[in-house]
């Protein structure tokens, strides 16, 4: 609400400078204070290898030019994308079925909610036993981390399809499958996006945790390896990149929801 008001007001030049003064300045100032405090505390109390803003910034060009870093980032991102895609496909199918078939819903609801509540990290020892110390364990962890929030959200969406839509579909003798794909799926799109937003965050955590646990190459392992060898600045650039991915995805989904589904007000379903 706040945002739409300010966006509307920002069209006139006066409001823009007003917004600059009331929003951007406090934010810039706060950011500066945080960085300054961090710099001072580390300089005063911590050993030289500990990351602080100035040295992290100086490490950025070096790290970005490092092929090992680029490879690690590529590997992790590819794994997250692959795992998310698999979770998305199967999660959507299971979610749609759950939302539209009460029998199926009753049968597996407790398992979906149950697995969603299991802290994803505890399955790592089991997955490493099953899939070995390889990329397969990472993919499996990502899928496990991501799929249940997609199922839960899609099922919510499929349940909340307006009754009139379904009645129209029935009176036109639409088949089960075409109703599901043509009406239920598009109608639960906002829920699906909310699910993806959650799932992406969890998938990223899953990938990093898996890399820590099984020491398979990737961004998480890059952070682990460099911080162990006292290259904290380099490792912290990795953390910054992870944060950028997390925030970037959040913003992307929020933007997509507002752009393509402006009628939908985001609420906190199963988050």
């Amino acid at each position, binding site marked *: *609400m*706040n945002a739409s008001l300010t966006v509307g007001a920002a069209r006139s030049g006066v409001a823009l400078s007003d917004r600059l003064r*009331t*929003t951007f300045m*406090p*934010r810039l*100032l*706060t*950011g500066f204070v*945080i960085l300054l405090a961090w710099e001072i505390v580390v300089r005063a109390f*911590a050993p030289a290898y*500990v*990351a602080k803003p100035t040295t992290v910034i100086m490490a950025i060009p070096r790290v970005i030019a490092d092929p090992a870093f680029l490879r690690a980032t590529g590997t992790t991102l590819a794994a997250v994308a692959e795992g998310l895609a698999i979770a998305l496909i199967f999660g959507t199918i299971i979610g749609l079925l759950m939302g539209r078939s009460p029998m199926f819903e*009753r*049968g*597996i*609801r*407790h*398992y979906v*909610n*149950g*697995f969603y*509540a*299991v*802290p*994803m*990290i*505890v*399955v*790592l*020892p*089991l997955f*490493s*036993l*099953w899939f070995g110390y390889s990329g397969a364990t990472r993919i499996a962890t990502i899928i496990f981390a991501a799929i249940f929030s997609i199922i839960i959200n899609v099922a919510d969406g499929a349940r909340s399809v307006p009754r009139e839509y379904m009645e129209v579909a029935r009176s036109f003798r639409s088949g089960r499958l075409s109703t599901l794909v043509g009406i239920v799926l598009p109608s639960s799109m906002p829920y699906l996006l909310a699910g993806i937003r959650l799932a992406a*965050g969890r998938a990223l*955590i899953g990938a*990093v*945790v898996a890399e*820590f*646990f099984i020491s398979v190459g990737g961004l*998480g392992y890059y*952070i*682990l390896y460099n*911080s*162990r060898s*006292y290259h*904290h600045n380099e*490792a*912290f650039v*990795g*953390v910054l990149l*992870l*944060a950028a991915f*997390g*925030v970037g*995805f*959040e913003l992307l989904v929020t933007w997509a929801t507002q752009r393509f589904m402006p009628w939908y007000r985001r609420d*906190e379903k199963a*988050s």
Partner: protein
Amino acid sequence: MENIRRHAPFWTSILAGIALWEIAGRSTSKAFMVPLSETLVRLWQLVSGGQFITQLIDSTILFLSGFVLALVVGMPLGLLLARVRVLRIGIEPYIMILYATPMVALIPFILSLMGFGFAPKVLVVFLFAVFPVLYNTVEGARSIKPELIEVAKSYRSSEWALWREVMLPYTLPYTMTGVRQAIGRALVGMVAAEFFLSSTGLGQLIMGASQNFDTAGVFASILVIGLIGVGLMRLGLKIEQHFARWRN
């Protein structure tokens, strides 16, 4: 009778799950999967061995320390941000960034700076749990219409009355959504701390079992942590729903 009919689908699906687990466990290699019956036998051995109980207590203390610390810091800070608008606008984006950052990535730094004690593990649980509380409280603060505060002020409302009538009723429901999220995250943080920092508690139980190729032990500990997760999630939902009645 009514009760039985209402709960029949639940028990059918639970029984089917148990049967599926048992059959799958019996028809695959012991190294990969263990039937439920064996898992329960192993769990009983662990419990009667006594070491399980101390590990459970260790984990509980870790969880509660980090979680309570997150509440003690997160709730007052969130409410302060809700009241002082300039502060909120300034800090908001940074809270959002930290909320979206995978906190696990900080564990290697915490390890190398703070070592293997109890404090670094509490810090991990705290970092996992505090940002959902802050983020949601700030979200709640944003939902308060500025006019409400202006009206209260123009009627010369005292600070205390403003808090009681406007600030708390509007932000607490959001805070409680954050508390529910924080419970789930704190549990992940607890296990992550026990895996990657000094190995104690339920995390140590799983790690030990997996290193000894004790698949039944792995399943038993996952079952226990899973049930704890489900229970805590239920509790979180109860708390959230209790306060959701205030939301309008």
